[in-house]
């Protein structure tokens, strides 16, 4: 682990924000603007060769009721988690990117993360799903549209503060 982290640190400097090796699945946290280069390095480097992107997930850290929010040990933010694995060397890696829930604070404008669809083609659909369900915009994505919900759906269902709409095209929601 240490040799990889040191390699990344000297290559990307403070882009590598945090490393966590004790948990069950260890992960590296990266800043959004350096994410693209890290991914290119991880996928391109022959020693590491993480050529399979298993899954992209967005986790919304927000407690809706104030009591729990006060006790929580994290302030509200969003995490985009990339699970990578290598077919050739048979090893896996978890990358995390922390973004705040709304872009520079104002409600409704989605946080932005650079898209890795150029490196792994499977990210195309995964990022569309994250955008559709959790509301994270991926800049540079070839076809940023909703994939599961209808195109004119309002709101992002997997966000903690999501309210099911009252009706959709005449169909009762709640």
């Amino acid at each position, binding site marked *: *682990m*240490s040799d*990889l*982290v040191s390699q990344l640190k000297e290559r990307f400097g403070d882009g590598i924000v945090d*490393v966590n*090796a004790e948990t069950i*699945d*260890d*992960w*590296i946290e990266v800043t959004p603007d350096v994410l693209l280069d890290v991914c290119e390095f991880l996928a391109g480097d022959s020693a*590491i060769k*993480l050529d399979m992107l298993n899954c992209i997930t967005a986790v919304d850290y927000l407690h809706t009721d104030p009591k729990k929010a006060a006790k929580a040990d994290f302030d509200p933010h969003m995490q985009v988690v990339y699970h990578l*694995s*290598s*077919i*050739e060397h*048979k*090893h*896996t*890696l*978890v990358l995390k990117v922390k973004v705040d829930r709304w872009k520079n604070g104002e409600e409704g404008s989605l946080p932005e993360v650079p898209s890795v669809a150029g490196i792994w083609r499977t990210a195309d659909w995964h990022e569309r799903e994250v955008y559709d369900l959790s509301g994270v915009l991926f800049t540079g994505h070839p076809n940023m549209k909703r994939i599961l919900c209808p195109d004119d759906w309002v709101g992002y269902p997997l966000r903690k503060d999501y309210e099911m709409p009252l009706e959709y095209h005449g169909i009762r929601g709640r």
Partner: protein
Amino acid sequence: MGILAAVNRVYWHEFFFMLFAGISVVFAVCVLLTQNIVRMAFYLVLSLGSTAGLFFLAGAEFVGAMQLMIYVGGTLVLLIFGVMLTAQQRYVKMNTHPTDWVLATIVGGSLLVLLIGAAAGVDSWKDASASKKALAELDVDDARTATPLGLALTGVRVDKLDSDDPALANGQSGYLLPFIIVSVHLLVVLIGAAYMARTKRSATAPVGRAERARLNIMQMEHETDDVVYSASKQSSSSLLDSDQSQAEESTDEAQE
């Protein structure tokens, strides 16, 4: 029994003749009047089909079947095929310009007059009774149509055996030569049509966007493709704790 005797004068032969002739004329006119081109093609089918009926009525089964197969079964299938492919929303309606109408009626009318004049000139059609008598004698059942035609095509004029002209008498002056010429001609036309219709395969022609994207993806793949994956029994471990897992793997291999 009175009714039966009273309406005894209906001759089925004449009735069907009127029916078929009527259908073919009416639908031929409909072809002109309708604007929906698929309907027009369909009316053409009906009118040519009823002319085939006329041939059957006249006892010429072979020519009737020929008309059905060639005109209706062959030409019109292709015509409808073509019309159907182009008859998407925009092209279904086809309204002709009034001046075309005038020009068409002049040309059509003059041809009609010419035909009627020619028809009036045929003397055997003049007195109705002669044709009716001939009609009575014609025994439709044993109309010998196919074989003499076939033989004539291969050069043997079987029906002119007793004519005084010596060449005809021993049956040599059939239609062999024109038949061969026509078949060669058709072959040439067929090959020409096939040549023109073939899809031109040219790599240089401008490639559509989707095609170009696909081609360079294929290109990209072939370079990155020669990485050989080895099938090794090695369970994947998290890269970060790869130091200790390296140790475990070596022990795994040792145990097997």
